[in-house]
């Protein structure tokens, strides 16, 4: 392999070089340019950060407004849920009332006077955890029979005692009681000790 050959060129710089001065000037120029570039970049970054901050504040406001709306809706919806629960709780009683109405309509060929007084006496009684499912008047109003359900047997006994007190003026008396574990629809909140009863 042949070594590289040196070539001649007499065309050279004619002006003095001032290398150090040029180097310093270049360094200064570079520093100035660098500072300007860095400063402008810093300024743009600061502006960008401010814009981001404003955007975030705007977004925060929107989220807060949305949350307020949602809270209101949640309150409304909580009220609706509570109402719904109350409605559901009242549903068995409404069914019982409907059953009573149906029973009344069907009872004894529409002799309402004989039926009205014992019914008024019975509906005046209120025993928590007990409700009637049937009321039967027979023997021309001389015999009354009540059927219903209760959360426990003690309620039935208390109801029977109070019913006899109310029926005393009507010369009616309930002296027989049949109790058995309930198999029908249970009232909301009722325990497993539900019983159905027949009082006559």
């Amino acid at each position, binding site marked *: *392999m*042949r*070594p590289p*050959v*040196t*070539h*001649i*060129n*007499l*065309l*050279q710089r*004619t002006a003095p070089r001032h290398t150090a001065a040029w180097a310093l000037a270049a360094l200064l120029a570079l520093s100035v340019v660098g500072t300007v570039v860095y400063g402008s970049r810093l300024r743009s970054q600061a502006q960008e950060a401010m814009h981001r901050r404003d955007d975030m504040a705007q977004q925060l406001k929107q989220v807060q407004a949305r949350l307020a709306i949602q809270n209101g809706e949640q309150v409304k919806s909580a009220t609706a849920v509570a109402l719904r629960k109350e409605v559901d709780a009242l549903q068995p009683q409404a069914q019982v009332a409907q059953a009573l109405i149906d029973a009344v309509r069907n009872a004894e060929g529409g002799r309402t006077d004989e039926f009205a007084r014992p019914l008024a006496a019975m509906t005046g009684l209120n025993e928590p955890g007990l409700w009637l499912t049937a009321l039967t008047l027979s023997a021309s109003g001389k015999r009354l029979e009540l059927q219903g359900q209760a959360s426990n047997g003690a309620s039935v006994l208390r109801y029977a005692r109070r019913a006899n007190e109310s029926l005393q003026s009507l010369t009616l008396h309930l002296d027989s009681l049949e109790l058995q574990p309930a198999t029908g629809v249970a009232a909301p909140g009722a325990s497993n000790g539900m019983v159905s009863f027949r009082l006559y």
Partner: protein
Amino acid sequence: MEFGINRKGWTVIDCCDGSSLCAVSLKTAVRTSERPLVLSVVEQAAESADLDAAALRDLMAHVDRSLPILMTLGRTQYRLRVMSEPAVPQREMHSSLRWSLSTEGDSSLEEVNLAWMRIPTEDQLPSRPRQLYAVTTTKAWLAARLAAWRQAGVRPKVVDIRETALRNIAGALERPGEGLALVSADAEGVGMVFTHQGSLYLDRYIEQPLAEVRAADAATRIRLHERIALQLMRSIDVIGRSYPFMPVTRVVVAPAPEALGLLEFLTEHLPLTVEPLDLNQVFDLGKVPALAQSSALQARCLVPLGAALRSAKVAA
């Protein structure tokens, strides 16, 4: 030192030989197996070859202006000398050479342009003091020439010398391991360059105006030829003693402006192989039939052609 590097080629203008301008465009970007392609050659007479801007402008119309321009100087316009290489780091070489030259007293530090190239002996003769070629030209003169060239629309990227142009041709003709002598004649004299591995090791120039040889009778002409042969043999002897690693066994004689019998004389009297230079060995002359057919034009264009080989890849 290596200004104006390019791989495409060069347009070389030699305006300093006699009273004619010569320009060649050479494409060096060729395949490895191909020779550099001579695109154009033009020689033009000029009353004052140095500063004839109109002739120079006219010359440029006939060459490839897309290639970078290289100018070659005449022998009287620069000084080439061998110096001891200062024992300084490479980066301080230029300053050190300037200082050495200024102490010789022929020029001040700031008045000359300086270029240099080593005479490589460090591999073959590591204990021998290193030497180099230093080339100087007067800065003011070169500035004036550059201004004149610019007025003619010529903006050279390189200013080169004749010895390195001839060295490039000799380097292209070398066989591996040999030292080669290239003898070339121009209007003012006969030059010799001795090369090895493409580098210049020795140069000689015998001032012998062509007009004198032309006018001489047969006996005088033989004496003139003997003078050249003697100088050649002495130079080969110097080479043998100074650079024993490059035996010169072959002398190549370049085409002369006129056939005055130098080649025949040397072939007959030298105990070495003497060959005529065939430019077809170095260049592809297919596009310039005028050059291929004219020895006189080849002699005139030898320096610009050699200078244009600057970026050519030469096989080892």
